[in-house]
């Protein structure tokens, strides 16, 4: 069981992370993944706006603990052979990857469900905050989304 969790300013190499996980255990039959990317537009105060950069702040120490707890609870729910969670912080440009979640299992259903679960809980429990800079130079904190709370709540039902 390989668990790799990192919070970093540097970009990550998705392909290398996938290869490392795939090679770690011969019981792995499938790896589900999610890569979150800085979108070029977002709903800001009820209207669509162009985004130029995104800055991610976090709570050092608690972030890593929160991610470890989320991964642990995924491992209790599904038969996983490995999990990778890498989350970037600092200033990111349009199109850059923000987060990588990889879940490896013998069968794909478990891998998919665990990957969705980790993303859903991460979105509501891991202490990261996004601030957007618009092309006119103004900045604003991104509001939490109701749909993220709903997505997380479905795992408690």
């Amino acid at each position, binding site marked *: 069981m390989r668990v790799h969790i990192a919070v970093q300013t540097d970009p990550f190499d998705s392909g290398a992370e996938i290869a490392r996980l795939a090679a770690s255990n011969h019981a792995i039959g499938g790896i589900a993944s999610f890569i*979150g990317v800085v979108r070029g537009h977002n709903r800001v105060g009820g209207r669509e706006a162009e985004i130029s950069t995104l800055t*991610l*702040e*976090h*709570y050092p*120490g*608690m972030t890593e*603990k*929160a991610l470890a707890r989320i991964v642990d609870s995924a491992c209790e729910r599904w038969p996983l052979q490995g999990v990778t969670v890498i*989350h970037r912080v600092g200033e990111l440009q349009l199109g850059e990857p*923000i*987060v990588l979640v990889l879940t490896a299992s013998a069968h794909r259903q478990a891998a998919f469900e665990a990957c969705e679960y980790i*993303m859903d809980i*991460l*979105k*509501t*429990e*891991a*202490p*990261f*905050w*996004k*601030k957007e800079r618009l092309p006119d130079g103004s900045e604003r*904190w*991104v*509001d*939490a*989304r109701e749909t993220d709370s709903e997505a997380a709540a479905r795992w408690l039902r």
Partner: protein
Amino acid sequence: MIRVMYFARLRDQLGSPGEQIEAPPATLGALVDQLAARGDDWAEAFSGSVLMAVNQEMADRDTPLAEGDEVAFFPPVTGG
């Protein structure tokens, strides 16, 4: 003494990344009430949706406080 940290929008609203509080009350709820009583900015900041952690674990108003604790207040998270 406890350490108190403010993050993201809350830090901007309060104009402070954190502080040390010498003689904290017994619970997190009492600390919130004490901070919110500091003035309009503080009352407004704590009137919204504020998440709370004690020693890097999510906490609520009933969570007891002890000497040396690390307390954090922050808005709903938006990572991922």
